[in-house]
């Protein structure tokens, strides 16, 4: 018996037997089988085997269908589909509220410092103990920006007094990091209204964060980590 050299056609014999070939392909395979002794023999074997393979256990379809209807009623699927959008909406609303609260805190902190605090250059702030050396002729080479020297807290000042900015104390603000850029579009009335509304929020911190902290950066991290 000659061996088949057309593997593609031979591969399609099961589909021919099971009736899953389209008309055009079926004709092509049948034409090949008419000329290929090995495929003709294999096709005959598959046709003989198929009834044996089809002969399987008979299951009670009605009983299975009844069990499915009893255990997973279609009404449950419909209810689930109706409930799901509401749950999603609630999650979105909570996320939006959280985002608004975070933004409000940021605005409150920034606006409180807006009119009173001069902007400070982003250059590294010198420590109080290094003031003399900064003013000396042998200043460090990296001090390139002629930024006004930040007013430093006296060395004897307790830490709490450093963190809590007095009404007119010039402290480093978030404006220096570009935080207030997005407030430029607000009118004075808008700012006043926003400030008035934020003053009533008890969660607004009473004090500025410590100078060496970057709460906005940390907040961004939290938000991004939360997946939006």
């Amino acid at each position, binding site marked *: 018996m000659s061996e088949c050299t057309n593997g593609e056609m031979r591969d399609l014999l*099961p589909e021919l037997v099971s009736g899953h070939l389209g008309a055009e392909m079926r004709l092509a395979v049948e034409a090949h089988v008419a000329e290929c002794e090995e495929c003709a023999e294999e096709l005959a074997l598959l046709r003989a085997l198929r009834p044996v393979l089809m002969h399987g256990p008979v299951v009670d379809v009605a009983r299975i*269908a009844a069990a499915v209807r009893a255990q997973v009623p279609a009404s449950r*699927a419909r209810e689930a589909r109706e409930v799901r959008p509401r749950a999603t909406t609630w999650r979105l609303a909570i996320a939006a509220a959280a985002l608004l609260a975070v933004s409000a805190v940021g605005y409150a902190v920034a606006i409180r410092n807006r009119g009173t605090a001069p902007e400070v250059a982003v250059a590294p702030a010198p420590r109080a103990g290094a003031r003399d050396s900064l003013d000396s002729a042998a200043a460090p080479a990296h001090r390139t920006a002629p930024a006004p020297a930040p007013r430093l807290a006296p060395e004897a000042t307790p830490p709490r007094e450093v963190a809590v900015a007095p009404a007119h104390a010039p402290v480093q603000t978030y404006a220096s990091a570009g935080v207030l850029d997005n407030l430029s579009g607000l009118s004075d009335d808008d700012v006043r209204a926003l400030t008035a509304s934020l003053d009533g929020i008890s969660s607004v911190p009473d004090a500025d964060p410590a100078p060496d902290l970057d709460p906005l950066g940390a907040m961004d991290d939290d938000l991004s980590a939360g997946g939006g």
Partner: protein
Amino acid sequence: MTDQSPSELVPDDAALIARWRGGDERAATALVERHAQHLARFVASLGERDEVEEVVQDAFVRAFGSLDSFRGESSFRTWLLTIARNLLRDRQRSRKRARLHVDIQDNDIVSSSDALEGTVAAETEARMRNAVESLTPMQRSIFTLRVTEGLSYKEIAIAVGSTEGAARVHYHNAMRAIREKIDE
């Protein structure tokens, strides 16, 4: 008389699933009627003998219970086959743990066909049945899916949790084994 397209007369699986999601209980019945026997054959080909109907029923219950996770990347039948295979695997593991594992290579089906013996045709059928039963469960299930369902190797690979290439090899090994068994 109203004009109806063939798809309206015989709704496909996707249409039935949509109807069921809309609360139509009859759609579940139609899907069970369409696929239950195929599923039973597959379960039996994997070596299950005593609890085929229970496995099939559990597969349907689980499928309808998690229909939201069905993304339609494979056919509904292939998805059912996958669920049935996983259920069967879990059951077989439980049996092993309980030391009640039934040898899946038994010859129950061959002995059940004794009544057919006595004629040449029956003897031929018995030899073929015996040849099929001599296959490993994996070979038998893949061969059955290929010849009875006409599934592609890709679909078979999804159903049995294997690769397309491995499914092809199993099929050809099964065919060779059957030939050898029949020629004995």
